[in-house]
Structures are given as structure tokens and as C-alpha cells.
């Protein structure tokens, strides 16, 4: 045992004033009594019977001296030399990935709690001059405590750490640690975790010594490793799920599926060790919104499932994915190219000599052709209609195509410039009262668009080949605007959901003012719409995220996004016995450095306890003294 601040031992000299004060204090209060006759006898009795009576009288002094001794001892900061993991400037990387939530420790605690204990133990054995930087390694590694030797700060910071539910970004974490350790004389990086550095294993040039403190004992874990739904047109939605047993024992598990919160099915499966069990169901009900799949360990199963975070997965009903567009034309390269160049469009070309296909499409484009009989259900774009339909009547052709005017205030006409477009002739359209004129020339409208009968329809009244519009830059802009109007893109394009920690890209519709996100825990976040695509990165928890796009007049669009932990690297919780980094293998480190374990808190605690005893003893005397004070004649001796 040695002392960090041995000078503090000089404080023992305070015992002298204490003894002096005690002697002064013992100038007793003088109290007049009727007779001391009996007291003298009592004193003779008590001194004869109890030789330690004199000592007892001084017990307060004794206690005070003990308190002083303990406090001086604590202030001198006594320590013992103990083996330590590391010394110098220590970069403490605490794995906070999803797998650290596994509760496979013998006491039922989680790996993260054990990691915190290990981190605290390293802090406890810090030598003089050692500093520690604590980095929490989650999807976004953060420096929790910058380099310090203040153990109180370190302990508080480590105790406040919480595990995440995402994959750890070890590349970023090691880069952060390396940057912090650069330039230090004796730097070391201590990784506390369950192993698996992923892409970081090949990271070169990590400075200093790397040490590894493994956490975790078991590999037993079952996970839902995939969950998705697909709906082909005209067919009931399909479910695809996969259960993976990452453990080394065959395991029974109950797979339950909830559709919009109601239990749909629950079955028991046996998943062989280290293998996956695909599940496909074709009998999902139509029109569902959210699927929730869960794994439950049967009561008779002896194979534990230590990680709960991957036992639940969510899926949102597929919303059709890409928009299906059917082009009926005798041949129009401009249209075909425009459709091909637009994202999110699945274009089909039909044969005008055969009837329309039976399967539904989101949008039908009739170019100089009209279907015989009724118009199909779905949105319609007529280009140079050859004849009358139920929606309009075609009138005479006109060549008065001068002075084109464009409705600038309409979002469908954004960036559309018709000043340089030349049109040879167009057809007058009659009876299309449901439509607004978006582009007009002297002779009449060139483009009409509107809603009728629950669908959207637009009419381009001229033949594209009789104008130079397809050669202008306005053409793809116009088509993109129109198609966006016909079938707007999904707010969030993530048909298979997102992984925990992935950024959510939100594309609100034009005119949106605010995006409101509702997280799985019920809390909400509001994002102002200040750009076309908003990014939302707070996807640290698995579950269903609701995205509401709010316009000036209320809700415009709404979507739900499933965020799941489909991370094999996290679900495979088998702890690694060694790490490989930069081509080297790092085995769990023995405590071969020298650390100092201080134990002044024990001395301080003991001092506090003795102080309590001293207070009790003093109070006991005081109580007897003051209980009858009013009946006494007491005289304090001054000086």
C-alpha cells in the first residue's frame, strides 16, 4: 500500500488542537445542587465497580480522533498496486450494438451491463497520469467522455451508457479512437464487446496497442431474419419470412403473425442449429396494413433465446411498388423514351390490334388510338385522340397555334416553357368541362387535365410528331410533371422497410409544409420541408414509423415504414474469443499492466460511520441534559 498524496498525512497534526479543544471543552458547566453528598457516593461506587468508566467518559474524544485518522487516511489517497488491462492514454471502445443486449450472462444480466462493469473496473485501476476516452460504439459512434483522468466523471459517464439496437459502425469507431490516440506517447485501444468488427477488420494503421475484453458466453439465439410481403396484381398478398437459429443447438420456437394487431397465425417450428427456416404464406388477407411477426420460446424448450431485439419484425403492406403504365400506340419513340427515362415507372407497351390486357394498370396512355368499347378503369392520358370518348368529343382541327399560354400557377406546369414550341395543328376538344386548360394557343387548348369519375385524365390535343415539342427540354419535364400528378410517388420509398440505423429518405409532395414522424414509442418529430428529399436518421429502434405529410390544409400524404433489425452480424451473438484487425489477431488481454486501485472511499465511509456513532453518543448525553433544563438552575462559567 502506498499513498498518492502522502503530504495529507500531515493533517494528523490536527489531533493536537482537537485534544486541546476537548480539554478546553471539558471545563465543565457548573451546576448548583442541594448537596453533593450522594453524588460523591455514586462516584465512589461507579469508579470502584467499573475501572473503564474514565475511558468511557472520553469516548467522544476517542471517536473524534478515529474520525480524524480515517479522514487523513482517505485524503492521503491510499492505493494498492493491482494488475490492470491497460495504461497510458486509453481509448475505451464500449460496444453498444444490438447484440450487446443479449442476456446470456450467468446472473441474467445483459452483456452491456457486464461491459460497463469491465469499463468501470478499468477506470478503478487507472494509474497516476492515465487518461481514458470513452467511445460508445453504435450505428453512430460517439465520444461519450473526452480524455480525462477524473474518475468521478468517467464512472458517471460509463454508468449512463445505454445499449443501442443497431449494428455497430466499427470503422468509424476505430477511426475516431485512432484520431484521438494519435500523438500520445503510450496509447492503447481497449475494445469491450462481443467481437465481430465487420468491415473494420481490414482497417490499417491503428496506432497504439489494441486490447480486447470479451463479453458474453453463449451463442444461443433465434431471430426473424427476414419478413416481407409482396402483392402481385390480381393476386392475394404473399408473406415471406425467415427464422434463423444462430445457436449450436436445434431449437423449437413459436412463430406468431399478427395482422393489423390481431393474431393471424401461430405455429411451432423446429429450426436446426445454424440454419434458417424460410416461411412462405400466400393466404394473407387482402387490404391489411401492418404485419408483425414474433418469436416465442415454448415453455418446454430448453434452448434459450438470449437476444430479444431480433425476435420481433414488422412489415408494411406493399403499395404496388413501381407505377405500371400501359402505352397503346402505333409507335411513338418519344413517348417510349420519356417513359423509360422516368424513375418509378414500369412501362408496358400493348398491341393496338388486340384488345386491352385484362390486368389493371395505373395509367393508360392512348396515343392516336382509342380502345373499342368502354374506357378501362385507371388514369388516362390521351395523345391526339382520333375520336370521341365518353369523356369528350373531338372537334375540328385548328392551325391557330400562335401565342401559347401556360398556366404558371399550376404545379403540373412547373418549369414548363412553351414559348419556343411549335405545333402544326391540334384538335379542338368539346365537352371536357371536367378538365382545366393547362396550355392553350389562340385556337384552343393544347393540354387539358382534370379529375372525372374518380380518376385523372389528361388530353394532349396534338400529334407529337407534328410538333417540335419532343425535341425540346420541356418535353421530359412535362411528362414527369404529368406522371407525378397521375400517380404520385410514395412518400418514403422503402418497400422492404429499413434496417435499424438506416436513414429514411422522405419525399413529400409539392405544397407540403411539414413532415411529422411518429416513432414506435409514440413520440413525434416534426421536420420542416425545406428541400425535395428529407433525411431522417433517428431510426435507432425497430418498429413501425408513421410519416405524415402536412400541407396548409391538413394531412396530404401518409405512409408507414417498418424498421427491423435484420442484421446477421448482430443476431449471431456467439462471442468471439479473438479479434482480427489489420491482419493481426488480438486475443483477450491479460491484466499485465500495473494499475492502482485506490480505496479512500472505504476510509471516508468508515469515517462517516464513526461520525454517526459520535453523533449518537453526543446526542444521548445531550438529551439527558436538556430534558429537564427548565427546572434547573444552571450557571455557565464564563472564561
Amino acid at each position, binding site marked *: 500500500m502506498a499513498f498518492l498524496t502522502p503530504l495529507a498525512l500531515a493533517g494528523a497534526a490536527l489531533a493536537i488542537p482537537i485534544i486541546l479543544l476537548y480539554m478546553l471543552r471539558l471545563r*465543565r*458547566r457548573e451546576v448548583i*445542587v442541594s*448537596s453533593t453528598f450522594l453524588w460523591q457516593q455514586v462516584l465512589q461506587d461507579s469508579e470502584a465497580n467499573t475501572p473503564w468508566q474514565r475511558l468511557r467518559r472520553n469516548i467522544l474524544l476517542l471517536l473524534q480522533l478515529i474520525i480524524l485518522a480515517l479522514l487523513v487516511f482517505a485524503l492521503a489517497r491510499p492505493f494498492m498496486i493491482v494488475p490492470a488491462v491497460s495504461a497510458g492514454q486509453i481509448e475505451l471502445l464500449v460496444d453498444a450494438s444490438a447484440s450487446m443486449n443479449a442476456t446470456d450472462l450467468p446472473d441474467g444480466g445483459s452483456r452491456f451491463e457486464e461491459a460497463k462493469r469491465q469499463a468501470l473496473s478499468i477506470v478503478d485501476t487507472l494509474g497516476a497520469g492515465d487518461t481514458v476516452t470513452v467511445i460508445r460504439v453504435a450505428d453512430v459512434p460517439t465520444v461519450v467522455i473526452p480524455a480525462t483522468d477524473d474518475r468521478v466523471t468517467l464512472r458517471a459517464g460509463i454508468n449512463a451508457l445505454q445499449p443501442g439496437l443497431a449494428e455497430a459502425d466499427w470503422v468509424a469507431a476505430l477511426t475516431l479512437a485512432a484520431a484521438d490516440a494519435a500523438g500520445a506517447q503510450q496509447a492503447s485501444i481497449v475494445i469491450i464487446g462481443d467481437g465481430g468488427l465487420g468491415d473494420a477488420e481490414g482497417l490499417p494503421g491503428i496506432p497504439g496497442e489494441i486490447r480486447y475484453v470479451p463479453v458474453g458466453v453463449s451463442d444461443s439465439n433465434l431471430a426473424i431474419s427476414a419478413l416481407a410481403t409482396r402483392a402481385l396484381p390480381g393476386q392475394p398478398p404473399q408473406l415471406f419470412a425467415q427464422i434463423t437459429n444462430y445457436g449450436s443447438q436445434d431449437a423449437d420456437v413459436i412463430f406468431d403473425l399478427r395482422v393489423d394487431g390481431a393474431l393471424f397465425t401461430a405455429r411451432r417450428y423446429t429450426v436446426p442449429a445454424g440454419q434458417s427456416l424460410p416461411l412462405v404464406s400466400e393466404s394473407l388477407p387482402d387490404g391489411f396494413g401492418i404485419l408483425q411477426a414474433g418469436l416465442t420460446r415454448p415453455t418446454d424448450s430448453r434452448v434459450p433465446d438470449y437476444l430479444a431485439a431480433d425476435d420481433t419484425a414488422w412489415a408494411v403492406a406493399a403499395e404496388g411498388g413501381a407505377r405500371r403504365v400501359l402505352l397503346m400506340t402505333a409507335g411513338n419513340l418519344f413517348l417510349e423514351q420519356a417513359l423509360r427515362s422516368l424513375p418509378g415507372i414500369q412501362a408496358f407497351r400493348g398491341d393496338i390490334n388486340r384488345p386491352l390486357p385484362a390486368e389493371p394498370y395505373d395509367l393508360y396512355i392512348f396515343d392516336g388510338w382509342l380502345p373499342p368499347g368502354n374506357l378501362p378503369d385507371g388514369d388516362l392520358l390521351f395523345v391526339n385522340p382520333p375520336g370521341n370518348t365518353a369523356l369528350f368529343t373531338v372537334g375540328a382541327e385548328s392551325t391557330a397555334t400562335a401565342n401559347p399560354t401556360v398556366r404558371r400557377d399550376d404545379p403540373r406546369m412547373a418549369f414548363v416553357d412553351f414559348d419556343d414550341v411549335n405545333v402544326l395543328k391540334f384538335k379542338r376538344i368539346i365537352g371536357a368541362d371536367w378538365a382545366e386548360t393547362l396550355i392553350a394557343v389562340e385556337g384552343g387548348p393544347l393540354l387539358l387535365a382534370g379529375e372525372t369519375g374518380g380518376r385523372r385524365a389528361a388530353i394532349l390535343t396534338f400529334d407529337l410528331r407534328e410538333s417540335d415539342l419532343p425535341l425540346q427540354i420541356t418535353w421530359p419535364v412535362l411528362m414527369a410533371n404529368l406522371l407525378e400528378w397521375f400517380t404520385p410517388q410514395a412518400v418514403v420509398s422503402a418497400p422492404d422497410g429499413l434496417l435499424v440505423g438506416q436513414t429514411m429518405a422522405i419525399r413529400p409532395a409539392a405544397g407540403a409544409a411539414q413532415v411529422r414522424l411518429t416513432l414506435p414509442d409514440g413520440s413525434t418529430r416534426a421536420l420542416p420541408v425545406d428541400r425535395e428529399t428529407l433525411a431522417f436518421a433517428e431510426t435507432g429502434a425497430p418498429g413501425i414509423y408513421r410519416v405524415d405529410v402536412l400541407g396548409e390544409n391538413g394531412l396530404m400524404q401518409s405512409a408507414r415504414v417498418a424498421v427491423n433489425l435484420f442484421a446477421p452480424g448482430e443476431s449471431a451473438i456467439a462471442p468471439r474469443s479473438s479479434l482480427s484487425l489489420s491482419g493481426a489477431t488480438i486475443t483477450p488481454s491479460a491484466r499485465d499492466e500495473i494499475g492502482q486501485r485506490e480505496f479512500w472511499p472505504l476510509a471516508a465511509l468508515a469515517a462517516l460511520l464513526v461520525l454517526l456513532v459520535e453523533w449518537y453518543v453526543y446526542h444521548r448525553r445531550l438529551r439527558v441534559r436538556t430534558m429537564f433544563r427548565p*427546572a434547573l438552575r444552571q450557571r455557565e462559567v464564563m472564561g
Partner: protein
Amino acid sequence: MADERLFDETTRRKLEQLMLVARRVRAGAMKGERRSTKRGTSIEFADYRNYVRGDDLRRLDWNIYGRLERPFIKLLEDEEDLAVHLILDVSASMDWPQEGERDRNKFLYARRLFAGLAYMALATNDRLTLLATSDSTAAPFGPIRGRGFGLPMLAYVGGLKAAGITDLNAALKDYALRAGRPGLCFIISDLLMPGGYQDGINRLLGRGYEVGLIHILSPDEIEPPLGGDLRLVDVETGQGQEVTIDAGMRDLYIKRLEAWRDGIRADCVRRGVHYVGVDTGVPWEKVILFNLRRLGAVK
């Protein structure tokens, strides 16, 4: 202190109906109000006996002689007085407690008892001698007799002051030597004196006194309200005693006090001394009307 009445009218009347009783001392010298065991000259009839020569013919019962023609002498009861001695300890320790409820002051309490007993003695025409002593040099008040001395007696008792140190042994021995007729002697004291009292009482007993000891203590002497590191100063001697009083020490004191009182009581019983231990928390009349009556010293 002059305005503190020793007793009121009601108490005085009660006292007038009582008298002090001595069981052993019967040495009456003057006519009193007590029936004597001796035949005497009062009007109370006692017995008859045959006439013998030399008897006073005035005491012959002529009515019997006329009826029976035989001479009988009528014996009448004699009435005698009792010598009553009251000794009060007026040492400084008796004037305690000096604060708090005045009725609990030992000296006031003792003087009330003192005056009460004296008044009873005067009321029964006994020969009363009062001694307020703190040492052997004090002069007794009396002897006096008869109710006519009631007021001087009360003035004397009312004017007493507690001061000085009492050597009770010396005072009692001296009194035993100097006092005239032995009789019933009551000593009122707190007995808080290192010299003791036994020798003095022995001397009184040896002279034929019947002794009663009224031992007065105040409540705060019985359970002292003290605690802490103290220097106790004796109000009587001025001597200091350092003591650290905690709960254990108080218990020791209380046990010691009990043992002390028990020792005095046992000693008194052995010698045939009336012992009354009194706490000034108890009304003083009760001591006369109850405690002394029970002992047979008052009826």
C-alpha cells in the same frame, strides 16, 4: 418569604382535632390534657378501692358509704402533659429547590410541618420546645405551653432562615444534654450531611426520648434532571464535585439514593424510631394526617 402562609384556617382546624401521642414517655410534670396511667385528681372517674388509714377523707365516696356503710375511696384519672420537642434542620441544603414550584421547596415544606406539629402540641397544652438548628450553638424556643403561644410560635417559625452547615449529631447531642424533660421528639431534616445523625439520635433515645424522624427530599433530588459534563457545587459547603452524568450515571444515582433511604428506614425501625420519608411533591398535611397517624404518633 413572609407572605408565604404556613397553613390556612381549614388546616388549623384539622390540626386542633389531633394530638401527638407518645407511647413510652409518660413523665408528666404538670396537668395536661392527657389521661395519665397514674391515678390523679381530675374529675374523670377511674376506679374504687377500700379505704385505708391515712387516706384523704375528701376523696371518700360518701354516697357509697351511705348505701353500703363501708368506706370506699374514689379513684380519679390523673391528666398530665407531654413534653414535645421539635427540631428543624435549617441548613442551606434545606432551601431547595430554589426555583420552580414554591410548594416543593424543602424548607417551606419543613416549616409547615414544623409549625403544624407545634400547633398540635400547643392545642393539647403540651410542653413544647422548638429548636431550629444548623449547629450546636442554636438556642431553643420555649418551652411554651398553651394556645396563647400560637402566634409567637408562628412568628418564630415564619422568621426562620436556611443557612449554614448542619452538624446534626452535634446539635442533637447538645440538645439531649441541655433540654429539660425528655419527651416526644420530632426531627425534620433532609439528612444530606456526611456526619450522619445516628449518634445524636442514640443520645436522645438514651435519655428516654421517643424520637420521630421526618426525612424530607425534593423530587429533583430523587430523580436529578442533570446530564453532561458537570461540576456540581454543593449549595451548603460550596464544594465542587466533577461528574459526567449520562443515563447510566443517573441510574446509579437513583439506585444509590434508594439504598440510602432504605438504610435509614431499616436503622430507624431497629431503634424504634418513627421514620417518615417525605417527598415534597406530596401535600404536607398528608404527612401529619396520614403518615404520622399510621405510625401512631398522631391520633
